């Protein structure tokens, strides 16, 4: 006899893919990539097995933070069109399952990173998870339009974690990599908010577009992009930079500045007319911008190791 109740219960159980989706794999990709570059750029070397195991811990820790964020934000995720398909609002996983899953993974990743690499890196990972969950998700996100400016720090820590895996501490270069992501986050998310404003309004998330309007947001995007471009250029003359970095960084920043300026010059009616074509293009470009900057820092590091003094380059600090 077929046990129908048992079959029904089994059908309601979440699948492995649902749990994987809780880890926010797209965000995880960026976290692992920037952490790997931080590790590669560090002056001390790490055994490849230790490096891979440590990066896996960072990936799992970032995934755990994503799962805990989805657990806390499941009420607003249900309201927003962009996030309504996530595992909790779509009913594939319940909140308790997500909370237990995220907590276990967070604890496991922190302990293992401490054992695999060092306890400074583990403490930094723990602080990053805490910052993302408590400071950003639980506190800032629903209170202030500065949510992503301050909360952006959570996404900026991974290269510092990577660096600390190798060195057991913090360096000027790791702080520069932190600042690059930190300054990139506001223009990146505000560009998204411009064409997702209805979602944030409906969910009462005080994004800058909701609290201060589109014109202020457009002004802020260009202001932050200018500061970001200056910072990216400063990095070219640090230990992280070099001629290759400079060659890639200049056109990328000109591109981002032009895109932000176009956004600044546009208004709502113009944007709605072409369904936010420019804003969407700049948003996609901003993702490429960050990947390219970190990618070239990695390539530059490999070049410096393989061919010391391969090109004369002025280093200010």
């Amino acid at each position, binding site marked *: 006899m077929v046990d129908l109740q048992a079959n029904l219960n*089994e059908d309601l*159980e979440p699948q*492995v893919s649902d749990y994987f989706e809780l880890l926010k794999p797209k965000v995880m990709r960026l976290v692992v990539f920037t952490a790997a570059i931080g590790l590669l750029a560090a002056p001390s070397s790490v*055994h490849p097995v230790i490096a891979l195991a440590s990066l896996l811990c960072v990936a799992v820790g970032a995934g755990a933070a994503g799962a805990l964020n989805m657990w806390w934000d499941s009420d607003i995720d249900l309201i927003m069109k962009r996030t309504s398909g996530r595992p909790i609002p779509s009913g594939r996983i319940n909140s308790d399952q997500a909370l237990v899953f995220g907590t276990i993974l967070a604890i496991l990743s922190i302990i*293992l990173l401490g*054992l695999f690499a060092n306890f400074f890196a583990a403490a930094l990972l723990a602080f990053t998870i805490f910052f993302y969950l408590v400071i950003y998700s639980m506190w800032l996100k629903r209170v202030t339009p500065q949510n992503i400016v301050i909360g952006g720090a959570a996404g900026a820590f991974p290269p510092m974690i990577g660096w600390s895996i190798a060195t057991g501490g913090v360096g000027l270069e790791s702080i520069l990599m932190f600042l690059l992501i930190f300054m990139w986050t506001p223009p990146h998310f505000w560009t998204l908010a411009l064409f997702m404003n209805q979602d944030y309004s409906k969910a009462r998330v005080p994004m800058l577009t909701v609290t201060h309007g589109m014109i202020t947001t457009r002004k802020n995007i260009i202001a932050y992009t200018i500061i970001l471009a200056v910072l990216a250029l400063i990095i070219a003359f640090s230990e992280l930079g070099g001629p290759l970095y400079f060659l890639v960084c200049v056109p990328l920043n000109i591109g981002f500045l032009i895109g932000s300026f176009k956004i600044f010059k546009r208004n709502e009616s113009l944007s709605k007319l072409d369904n936010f074509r420019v804003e969407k293009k700049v948003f996609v470009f901003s993702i490429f911008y960050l990947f390219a900057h970190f990618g070239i820092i990695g390539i530059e590091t490999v070049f410096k190791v393989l061919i010391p003094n391969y090109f004369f380059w002025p280093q200010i600090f």
Partner: protein
Amino acid sequence: MRRGKNNAWLGIIMGCLVTLIFLVTIVKLSSGNKMQAFDHNLRPELVESNKKK
């Protein structure tokens, strides 16, 4: 069916975790790390001042 698939995945992930811990242990041991810690008896070789001698 679905539960069996989930269990199989969990088994694979646990297996990978055990393998990873094993590999890291081998690497740490072969690079000179000692596999001992405090165990209710004083071990002179674990005392920091004795290590330097």
